[in-house]
């Protein structure tokens, strides 16, 4: 079979007509959509303090981890006050189960990022036109 044969066959596709109630059915759905209340936006203002606290905790944990790691290196001098502060912070974190909280936060962040990545891959193209 040659390309002109394919062109001939595939160009003369049968046309189907919309059923009589199609436009009415679409408009019914559109009117329902128009009458529906707008979606509730994410409450950023309320969530912001919690997010800030979570961010600060994360930064503190990273800093204290770095301090602890460098403490293990010979010849490294670390101020005693830093060590005492980081040790008490680590002890408090252990009591609160901060490691699990951190893992949960990281997992939540990763899953949200993944979901957003998939969602942006689903409908990206026509929105750019």
């Amino acid at each position, binding site marked *: *079979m*040659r*390309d002109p044969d*394919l*062109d001939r*066959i*595939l*160009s003369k*596709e049968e*046309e*189907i*007509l*919309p*059923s009589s109630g*199609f*436009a009415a*059915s*679409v*408009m019914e*759905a*559109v*009117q329902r*959509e*128009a009458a529906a209340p707008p979606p509730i936006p994410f409450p950023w203002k309320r969530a912001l303090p919690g997010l800030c606290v979570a961010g600060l905790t994360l930064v503190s944990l990273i800093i204290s981890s770095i301090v602890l790691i460098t403490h293990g290196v010979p010849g490294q001098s670390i101020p005693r006050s830093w060590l005492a502060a980081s040790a008490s912070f680590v002890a408090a974190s252990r009591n609160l189960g901060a490691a699990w909280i951190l893992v949960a936060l990281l997992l939540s962040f990763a899953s949200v990022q993944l979901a957003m990545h998939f969602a942006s891959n*689903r*409908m990206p*193209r*026509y*929105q*750019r*036109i």
Partner: protein
Amino acid sequence: MSASEDEAAVQQVLDGNAGAFEGVVRRWQGPLINLAYRFCRDRGRAEEMAQEAFLRAYRSLDRWRREAAFSTWLFALATNLYCSELRRIPARTVALDDVAEPRDPRAIDGGLEQEDQDRIVRRAVHALPPKYREAVTLFYFHDMDIAAASHSLSLPEGTVKARLSRGRAILRSKLSQHLVAPLLRKEA
């Protein structure tokens, strides 16, 4: 309704008159249903997919930036939806190897009845891998216009040409077995 009337209708919808969308639906219902039908070969499902495409268009009207014609935007949106839908729930396809042999392998054109030949070719297109099937379907839907097909698929023209070429090569190879083998068997 012309392109400018499409634009006016869209503006009215954006200004809060949802009823103005009916003009858009009436103008584009035929093309959108036919495009869906070419993807799924099921009239009922084609109407469902077209309805969903109109609803998505209605929800996204404010994202049409007017850099392209409304029809270009609408076809790209519908194509994106149809491809996603068919990847999620594939249409019922018959593998080309399972396609029944034609009723009369010698009737016309030294071989098959025209109707049988057309049916086999369409099933062969339907059995192509999705990326080739989409390129082939859009190319013929847009009257063999590569630029229009590439706009609908939101892909560069070169990519669409390459997929079309590969799709046709697969079709030629498959169809040469299926359209010639019955004849050879008959003659043997």
